[in-house]
């Protein structure tokens, strides 16, 4: 299983973290610090797998962001590279040519997408189309709810409660 997902920028800023195994706050910061040091200093030609504390960490660099996933010893590293790519392609489809800024300003949407892709550290859906469809459906529901909430009748109802 995937134990955690980290998105780190080239300068070491954390853009997204998702933990599928229990790590306390202190442990989390420690892990992030260690892995940032380990991964950000690796050269470009080196392989995408690092051994760390008995786990394997698979990372891939897209533009200015490093996508890191920590897996156990039994897992298939090449597949996880594919999963990372899968995630990035879905993000790309959703945001349209995604860049780091999109992830900074819409981090909650990035989390929603990740939740449609991975649960409990395992892959959920291999079709980008399905994921996109689900996210779009939920988004429209939320839009509808927002609209209703801001409709005049609702405002009056709230005011007179």
């Amino acid at each position, binding site marked *: 299983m995937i134990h955690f997902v980290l998105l780190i920028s080239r300068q070491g800023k954390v853009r997204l973290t*998702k*933990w*599928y195994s*229990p*790590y*306390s*706050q202190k442990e989390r910061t420690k892990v992030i610090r260690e892995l940032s040091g380990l991964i950000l200093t690796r050269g470009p*030609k*080196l*392989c*995408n*797998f*690092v*051994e760390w504390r008995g786990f394997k960490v698979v990372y891939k660099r897209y533009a200015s962001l490093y996508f890191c996933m920590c897996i156990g010893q039994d897992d*298939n*590293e*090449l*597949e996880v*590279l*594919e*999963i990372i*790519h*899968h995630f990035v392609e879905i993000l790309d489809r959703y945001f349209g040519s995604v860049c780091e800024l999109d992830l900074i300003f819409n981090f*909650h949407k990035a*989390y*929603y997408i990740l*939740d449609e892709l991975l*649960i*409990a550290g*395992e*892959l*959920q*859906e*291999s*079709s*980008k*189309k*399905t994921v996109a469809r*689900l996210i779009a*459906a*939920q988004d429209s*529901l*939320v839009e509808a*709810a*927002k609209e*209703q*909430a*801001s409709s005049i009748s*609702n*405002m009056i109802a*709230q005011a007179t409660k």
Partner: protein
Amino acid sequence: MNPFSSGTRLRDMIRAIRACKTAAEERAVVRKESAAIRAAVNENDQDYRHQKRIGYLGLMLLLDERQEVLMLVTNSLKQDLNHSNQYIVGLALCALGNICSAEMARDLAPEVERLLQFRDPNVRKKAALCSIRIIKKVPDLAENFINPAAALLKEKHHGVLITGVQLCTDLCKVSAEALEYFRKKCTDNLVKLLKDVVNSPYAPEYDVSGITDPFLHIRLLKLLRVLGQGDADASDCMNDILAQVATKTESNKIAGNAILYECVETIMSIEDTSGLRVLAINILGRFLSNRDNNIRYVALNMLMKAITVDSQAVQRHRATILECVKDSDASIRKRALELVYLLVNESNVKPLTKELIDYLEVSDQEFRGDLTAKICSIVEKFSPEKIWYIDQMLKVLSEAGNFVKDEVWHALIVVISNASNLHGYTVRSLYRAVQTSGEQESLVRVAVWCIGEYGEMLVNNAGMLDIEDPITVTESDAVDVIEIAVKYHTSDLTTRAMCLIALLKLSCHFPTCSQRIKDIIVQHKGSLVLELQQRSIEFNSIIEKHQNIRSALVERMPVLDEATYSGRRAGSLPATVSTSPGPALNLPNGVAKPAAAPLVDLLDLSSDDVPAPSSSGGDFLQDLLGVDLSPASSLSGTSQAQKSGTDVLLDLLSIGTPPAQNSSSTTDILSPSQDNKTSIGTLERLSSPSAQASSPIGGSPVMDLLDGFAPTPPMPEDNGPAYPSVVAFDSSSLRITFNFSKPPGNPQTTLIQATFANKSPNVYTDFIFQAAVPKFLQLHLDPASSNTLPASDNGSITQTLRVTNSQHGKKSLVMRIRIGYKMNNKDILEEGQINNFPHGL
């Protein structure tokens, strides 16, 4: 609630959380939000769906399973799991799957199980993954999920298939019952599924670089691996499809390679069948030559596992693997080195070592430590001849001596001292090496020691081998080397101490340089380091005033016994490890003097290594029994209290009370080329005239002086059941006879029937026999027949001993005994050592 943009609500919540100073405040904020959500639900507020989404996001980000606050959400989770809106159910399942704790898992498991059959496939797939977490947290619940999981395998929706297959895999890992079930019922279906996916036409939705749904491929292969492992029938079913996947999959993109990798893993794990394994290793070979670092890394990993299965096939790729050792990527280098280490055997050790040593010269610093360690252990384990061993070690030391661990150059010295025909060659090679690589500390140490020991051979060109070039070294040159070493600014204490000793030895061998040597030694008289100061003063005084004993002091060191050394290195674990549950009398020595000079490590050359027999006699006794001086081991010994009175025996073996016979005689037993001046007479006193000392290394000069048995070869082939009985101990008052027999089927164990006979005219009462054995033996004493020994051979006491020899065939039995009895109300104690056990016991 703010009816305007819910974006502000999010921003407010985030601002509020960031403003919190403590975790408790954070929790309060979240609780407030959750309460607001619940309130909204009750009011049937329309925008609760949005709040819910944010609420769950906050929940998953801020809380994890270890926090008790999580329990509070269980109820709202339950309600959401029963909701009609599939997205809300999905949200709840997602949250549950990511962070639920064991109690929550137990509470909500029935709901999740029900949801495995929900109408919407998206919910089903989430429920499947959520179940995975539940069974990991609460393995007992696994049985409930077996049937629903099997049903999922019949689905068409890829998402559900992927998650269903994953659920089955995890179920098999958690529950053996599930494994059996899936193996029997589902293997065929799975094979068919995989076939369908492999042969399916182009599907744009699932296509990744030309392959339809590689994720499903991989999950299926993984599940097939779990099912096929250890079961021949299941493995049979999958052969065809595995062969198809292995041959048909395209390997120019990552997706294809990922599938091939998984396929190879599966092939290597299931039961062996015809050509599949060969196919797999060929794929790995192809991977190895791929330019992509990732692929090579993955291949090296797999090859390490493949070696256990089929090492011949892996040997074929040796050349490629050697190339990988020189790769620019650190992870690949490390893996390749480990793999090379596993590949070494007697036939390829020479070329491999040459390659590795050549690479050592160009490798970078962080890698050198690993590389040297591996080269040294390869060379030690597989060296065909001593001269090759010495050559390789010299090369390694010259290149990377500073990375070499102490025990490595200790072992080298042991080997050098044993290879007497190579002494001249070695010392000359070292001399040459030190001229060029003087900054490698271990090299300098070994060189200094050898020059000290074999200095005359260096100067006289003694023992020249054909392959050597002639070299003229004067005595002064030799002293130069040592002088440089002792004055070198980075030389540490050990090196300097060794230099001083070497100088002392040379002052004896090279009388012309004596004055110069004295000057060098004198310079350290005022050293601030106590060790150097002491040595300098002592040696100076020896040179000046004690000319007559100087040569005796610096005689050639006795050959260090290789077998004992490697045995002790291998077994240099504390005595707690070697004491088995069975009654073993491996009592540690030296309880009384833990602070004694640590001569347990015979080769601890930093301590006094002037081979003066008198001072080291008692300490060599410890070496005989190969014991550890640590107090912890003595405790473990005492806890194995035997009827033989353990604390009494401890005194027997402590250094404080030297045993009855001359301790240095024990060194005769184990070190064959001992000088003859140690008392042979005591040996005769100790053992009966017809007995012979059994030595692990044949050809001891001591043997010649005893008539009796001819020295038999040290490794007796004869394991015949009949062993002659021996008189183990014979003094003026007591005789002990041992009769041997071996229980059938267990060559390592010997049953000894000990008979005690009283030679004096007085009756012995309170007769107690005790024995102690070295670490490689285990001893068990049965109760004696009585403890009164009638006088003048009118009767005897018998006692049975059982000895198990873990070094059967390599070392003979040896035992120390102590007999205590009362004669005329006087306590008498007799002690002895039994060395005349027949060979082959």
